[in-house]
């Protein structure tokens, strides 16, 4: 067995459930704590998805178990924020799953907008 085979396959995690997808997309923009993720998901989805604390941490628990996200050692400046806050970031696997999801969704949108064969991808207007 080569070392290459130990790299987890991102396609095994795709597609993600909506809450997990939005959390991964939020963390793709940088490290965040729980409430920052909630706010980011709400903004990203134009208010369609409003995570509550239970759904947020239930999903975070799953994503941690799957190795898609990880806790950071980052602690905020005590003068600026509560030091008890936990910050999360995407793992290397999480970043490739995120890229795979973005590609999958992009393809989906492109195929929906350009159903006729022979048209160029990206020809939207």
């Amino acid at each position, binding site marked *: 067995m080569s070392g290459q085979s130990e790299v987890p396959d991102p396609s095994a995690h795709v597609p993600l459930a909506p809450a997990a997808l939005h959390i991964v997309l939020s963390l793709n923009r940088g490290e965040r704590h*729980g*409430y920052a993720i*909630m*706010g980011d998901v709400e903004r990203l989805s134009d208010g369609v998805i*409003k*995570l*509550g*604390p*239970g*759904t*947020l*941490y*239930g999903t*975070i*628990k799953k994503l941690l178990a799957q190795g898609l996200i990880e806790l950071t050692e980052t602690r905020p400046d005590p003068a600026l924020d*509560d030091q*008890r*806050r*936990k910050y999360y970031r995407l793992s290397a696997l999480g970043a490739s799953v995120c890229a795979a999801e973005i590609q999958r969704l992009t393809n989906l949108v492109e195929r929906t907008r350009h159903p006729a064969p022979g048209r160029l991808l990206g020809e939207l207007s």
Partner: protein
Amino acid sequence: MTMTSARGIEHIDRQERIYRRLLFVYPRSFRDEYGDDLVQSFRDLMVFTADGRGPWLRTVRDLISSAAKEHGAMFSGGRKPSLSVVFVVVATLLAAIVMGPGLLLPVIMLPTVVMLGLPIYGIAQFRRAWLVRRTTAGAIARNVTTGVASFAPAAAVLALLSPTTPDTSSS
């Protein structure tokens, strides 16, 4: 707009204590691992949301759905969920199917929790007190106290509903 005045902070502290008590609906392992994070996020919601009712509406909906999911995850993980919570969730869902979701909160859920869910939770606490009887007196006392307290709302409702004075004037 945020609530940052002294009265606002006091109000948020009170809401936070209520939310922390409601966390009993989650499995113990989830509560132990994420309880403080859940409370912190709830507090942030209260602080940064202008509409006072908004966070609670979101939180109650989330509490019901995510507690059911966490207990479901425990089932699939082969661990035993809390009997009382399973009972409340199943009874509430059955009631919602029979009577319609519009009546769920005021008519069905509260009486179900007060009259059935909490007493069963109390029995579970007595059982836990029995199981931990050889550990610490503090743990036993805590479980017995919680058990007794769980029966209090149901007892109060029964006391209110019972006739005040028996009719002894029969001829």
